[in-house]
């Protein structure tokens, strides 16, 4: 693949990025690659453990078929290198000398122990920016704690806000933390590059995954820090400071929808639904309620329950699509609870060209990826090329760029260095 052609006009093409570590750093590098940076993923010889993460294409666990690996590492080049040995460290240092940004996600101070920490690298390249991504940050009492997506979700406040009261707090059953981390670390990296324009010098950025997940949650902190209230899970209701929450999730004919009974400033939302219900003879006592004037403080539990029963009955007679489309027509906010199947079939995403097919020779076909999650009039942001195979660009980078000979490469391979 010719990277130069495909990245024409993208804003970050002048930047070279090295990525060392694991899935904690890979989405950060991926986003920079999407905007045109030349991101080189450095894996250990034989392939990074991220390749062991499911789900797998056709459920076949294989290092070139990990869909998680493929998504996180699209648009990158890939080389293998063992930085635990001297030859590997020398090669890495040569690469770092010509790199703008290093993203690394080793445990705190690990690179320092190899003589590849920021202080060492900046002697070789004063302009290098090192983004160090760790679970809790490079400092603090939790610096050496262990984490995983479940721990991040729990510590961030998300889980306490989700689930049925009395039953276990719930996470989203799909890994989220490393995406949150990747997005915010990419922002930090770009800010570091911006600062470097002014000062001419690089720096090390100490990034905490935990903090990024907390910043991906925030609402429980509004409640506690502002009002000393503890935002808590209320099943399918939204927490409302101790009084009964407003119901949000409703079964319907073929699934579920989300819609909240909104009042006063947003009462028009409810009025619009009731008008529709009236047109089908189902408005009943809801028609007498002045949704735009009343506030929740005046509503008793019995009254709310009564309303909910009428709404629930109405929703149960309609499909997700019927309810959603009528919402768009009549201007009320209602969304279907889409399965991932529904998401992939969503008309809006298709019309927005949200999906792209990329060829994968090693699996003998194509995979479809989300694409164009941000639309710019200046360039096209999305998946241009598949993630690298193990050591796919060893020759290109080691021989062509660094001038290492074929014989030397064979020697390094045999010694487990690349």
């Amino acid at each position, binding site marked *: 693949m010719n990277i130069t052609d495909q990245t024409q006009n993208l804003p970050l093409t002048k930047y070279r990025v090295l990525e060392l570590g694991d899935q904690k750093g890979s989405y950060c590098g991926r986003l920079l690659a999407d905007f045109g940076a030349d991101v080189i993923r450095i894996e250990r010889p034989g392939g990074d453990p991220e390749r062991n993460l499911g789900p797998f294409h056709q459920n076949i666990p294989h290092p070139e078929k990990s869909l998680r690996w493929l998504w996180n590492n699209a648009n990158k080049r890939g080389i293998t290198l063992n930085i635990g040995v001297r030859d590997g460290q020398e090669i890495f240092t040569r690469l770092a000398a010509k790199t703008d940004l290093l993203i690394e996600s080793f445990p705190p101070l690990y690179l320092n122990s190899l003589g590849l920490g920021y202080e060492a690298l900046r002697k070789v390249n004063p302009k290098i920016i090192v983004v160090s991504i760790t679970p809790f940050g490079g400092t603090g009492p939790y610096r050496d704690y262990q984490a995983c997506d479940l721990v991040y979700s729990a510590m961030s406040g998300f889980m306490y806000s989700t689930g049925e009261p009395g039953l276990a707090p719930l996470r989203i059953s799909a890994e989220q933390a490393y995406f949150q981390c990747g997005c915010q670390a990419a922002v930090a990296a*770009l800010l570091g590059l911006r600062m470097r324009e002014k000062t001419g010098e690089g720096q090390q950025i100490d990034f905490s995954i935990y903090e990024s997940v907390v910043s991906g949650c925030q609402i429980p902190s509004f409640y506690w820090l502002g009002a000393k209230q503890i935002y808590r899970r209320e099943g399918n209701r939204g927490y409302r400071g101790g009084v009964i929450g407003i119901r949000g999730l409703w079964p319907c004919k073929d699934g579920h929808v989300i819609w909240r009974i909104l009042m006063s400033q947003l009462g028009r939302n409810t009025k619009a639904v009731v008008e529709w219900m009236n047109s089908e003879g189902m408005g009943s006592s809801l028609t007498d309620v002045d949704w735009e004037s009343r506030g929740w403080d005046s509503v008793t539990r019995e009254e709310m329950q009564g309303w909910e029963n009428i709404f629930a009955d109405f929703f149960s007679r309609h499909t997700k699509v019927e309810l959603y489309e009528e919402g768009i027509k009549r201007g009320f906010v209602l969304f279907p609870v889409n399965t991932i199947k529904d998401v992939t079939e969503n008309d809006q995403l298709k019309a*927005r060209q949200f999906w792209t097919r990329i060829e994968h020779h090693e699996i003998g076909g194509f995979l479809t990826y989300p694409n164009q999650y*941000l639309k710019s009039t200046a360039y096209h942001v999305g998946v241009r090329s598949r993630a690298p195979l193990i050591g796919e660009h060893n020759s290109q980078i080691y021989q062509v760029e660094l001038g290492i000979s074929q014989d030397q490469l064979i020697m390094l391979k045999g010694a487990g260095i690349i």
Partner: protein
Amino acid sequence: MRSATTSPKKRELTLNGLKVLDLTWVMAGPLTTAYLGMHGAIVIKIESEKRLDHARCNPPWLNGIAGRERASMFNALNCDKLSLQLNLSTDGGKQVLKRLVAWADVILESFTPGVLARLGLSYEELKKIKPDIIMVSMSIQGQNGPESMSKGFGSEIQALAGFTSFIGYPDGPPLMTGLAYTDFIVPWYTLIGILAALEHREHNGEGQYIDVSHLETGVTFLAVEAIEYLAGAKLKPRIGNRSPWAAPHGAYQLRGEDRWCVLAVLNDMQWHSLKTIMGDPDWARQAKFHSLLDRKMNEEELDKLIGQWTCTQDEGVIFRLQAAGVPASIVSTGQDLSACPQLKERGHFLKVVRSDVGPVYCEMPSYRCVPPLFELPKPPPSFGEHTEYVCKNILCMSDEEFLKMYDKGVFY
């Protein structure tokens, strides 16, 4: 309407006094511009009595007392912005806005698609005023497409993006989260887009229009599941807090009122450590819990037994688990977050003192570095606090012009 003195943004900071015009409201947009502000941008936020920011109108209220300056959501997400009261439905309001466009580097808006165009303020129109303007439209579903006109809030869009279908107890129905989940995804993508746009503009002098949506950025967080489905996988039932590749892995109740922990055993060593910390109970030595495959097959029983043990424990068990290398934590409440020693050490939450209502709080970026890229922000503005300042000091209006416009209701 109050005037207030304010000093220009420090030019030592990363964004060098980048001029940002903020037409957004509620959470996602304001979070984005606040982040730019912390890193050195000057942010002018447009507010109007005709269209009061929902973030000012809803609880939680500071100390439980309602008031447009006392809303926690507003105070957390609008630090250090200049508040300009501007009525965009007046001709004068539109004029002032156009003068602000001439001033601005970046404009961020989150109206329903088409609203700004109807006010004569589309990207094409604004480009005539400032050819290299970077304009960003943040919307629920994007600026075009069959469903672009749907109204929505972050609280509901979770369902459309697929998140709600991934929340629920094992084999149970979907459950929503009370949180406006996508409101804290789209800002980061928007910031990447803006910073990339600044690189582009520096390189060839061009501005651009960026169209970013809650739906599309949200779905990227379920990309792996989408790719899997499109590659031919079947829809799977919900698994709650379980993991496809680890056991035990879940939430377990502790001693105390609704106190929970999570723990995960990701390898044999961690299983051994957990057994030791549990006091090496007989049940844990059974062959059916010996290996990962064994534990996975007997997961329901395993969870029950671990839960029976955690119920006898207080939060101190988490420190013992972590000391032994087992991923574990409390299920944090907002109170836990504010007391968290790690977040304290990192300075994640910042107390900012408003002269009118006292201390309010906001979150700092998730990283540290020296020299710093951001500064501690000033307090959030009161409604329309900087109207006169912006008009006279930034737009260089004379006193007469300002008063004339004021009388016409331009600053309502």
